[in-house]
């Protein structure tokens, strides 16, 4: 089983983004389970979304305490206790951030940055940075096919579908390019 967490703030698309990523894996024929935890129904409050992926039905129903991979939509959340713990070995942390030092403790594993805020703004998406970060996750890890992810974004975006698909593809290319440089 693969476990992924998405951390964001209300209004950035963490919960819907998690459902979109679930849909992308589902399209590849896998079993998925996606849900979210948040402190209140308000914008700006921290949101944690959970995604499990397996090749068989998933029976456990609890929060993910130590994910394989994590996607962080707002870099200020890196100082939050839930995010300061290590990922599983080999895990990838995808962070929406421009260049410069990251908040929180030093990271042991692989960290992939994508300036999703700039991508979202370029596509007129305002605070919705989730789709660009999803693209970066796909590009950095290769775990989900861009084709499946684009289709899932197209289907799952409540508004601005074309812009979200473009932002997703741009995030993918940025991270895939970084992965090639790093390799």
């Amino acid at each position: 089983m693969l476990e992924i967490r998405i951390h964001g703030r209300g209004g950035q698309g963490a919960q819907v983004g998690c459902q979109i990523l679930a849909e992308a894996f589902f399209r590849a024929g896998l079993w998925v389970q996606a849900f979210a935890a948040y402190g209140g129904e308000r914008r700006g409050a921290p949101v944690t979304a959970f995604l499990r992926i397996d090749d068989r039905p998933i029976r456990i129903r609890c929060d993910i305490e130590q994910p394989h991979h994590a996607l962080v939509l707002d870099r200020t959340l890196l100082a939050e206790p839930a995010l300061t713990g290590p990922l599983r070995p080999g895990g990838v942390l995808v962070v929406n951030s421009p260049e410069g030092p990251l908040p929180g403790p030093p990271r042991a594993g692989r960290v992939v940055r994508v300036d999703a805020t700039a991508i979202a703004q370029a596509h007129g998406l305002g605070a919705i940075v989730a789709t660009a970060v999803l693209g970066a996750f796909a590009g950095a890890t290769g775990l989900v096919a861009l084709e499946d992810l684009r289709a899932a974004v197209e289907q799952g975006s409540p508004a601005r579908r074309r812009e979200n698909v473009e932002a997703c593809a741009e995030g993918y290319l940025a991270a895939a390019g970084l992965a090639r440089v790093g390799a």
Partner: protein
Amino acid sequence: MTAQAALGHRPTRMLLTGDHAVAYGALRAQPHVIPVYPITPQTPVLEKLVELAEAGELRGDLMTVESEHSAMAACIAASLAGARVFTATASQGLALMHEMLHYAAGARAPVVMVNVNRTLASPWGFWADQTDSLAQRDTGWIQLYCESAQEALDTVLHAFRVAEAVLLPAMVVIEAVYVSHTLEPVEVPEPALVARFLPPFTPTLRLDPARPRGVGGTATPAQWRGNRLAMTAAMDRALEEVETAGRLWGGLTGRASAAAEAYRAADAEVLLVTAGSIAGTAREAVDRLREEGIPAGLVRLRLFRPFPAGEVTARLRGARRIAVLDRNCSVGSGGIFAQEVRAALQVALDGPPPVLSYLLGLGGINVSVERVIQVGRDALRRPLPCPGPILEEAL
């Protein structure tokens, strides 16, 4: 091979949340009247029903009313007029319906309602807690607790079959977040398959302007008592109907169910008992406890009213210790499922195994696999007597 496969049906597997799965269950049951009032975390049920109605798929009369009390009043009247009736609510909404819940059962209106378990105020919250539905245990409603979106969809169909067979209302219960808002693959059965399972609702008596009659007028003490005894007999039949529906649906879809379901229970020394979303996590915990050398098992309560005392006793009688995991709290008493299990065993067995009560996940707190494993270990070594509920801090 299931009948589904034999008939060449290819079920549509969709990604649905528990709430949306419930709406598809209602769609397949083809209710005539659906009075609903929105409340978090039930609202997506209503949103999906509206979407299905606008798409022309859902043909029933979707009534938006001014409160849950009115919703249930409308449900009762429509049901007594011979309509198949569906509704859904949660928490405060269910509490506001309380008076009408008794009325529905006493009037023998087989309404089917989904309740999404959510904390009751005060303080305000949106999280999973089963106390809202368990507080309605004495209203005369059948209650079925589900652990997944798939089971929620299936159980809506089971509930109509059972309720209409015995003429009692039925409540299908799912927990907030962990089922209601969890997205997962769900098979939506073909209408033709559902038609083989769920016959049309054809009550022998119904309100009809052409032949005026009343329901719910003043009864003498003897008549009132007779009504309650008839309801009691109907509840006994409901247990059989639930078991029959579970077997029949298993034959049609491969997804059989029972009033009380056992997992690795036959030779278990410590048996976990729970209802709802914790069950899947508990199955994982059972497997890991067995890897540690602790013979653990699980009995999941799917049916709560009528309480399947015989089925529960048969599955629990051989254990050395029983640990009931309750995501609910009757303040001043403790876990509600634990009370019911204790009562059932007390009259059924001479010297029943000790039933320990664990309060886990109150207010929607996460219940991890590790937490349930701790319960399994704790139950075997906890000194007796231990009447009070055991909290997470004590594990």
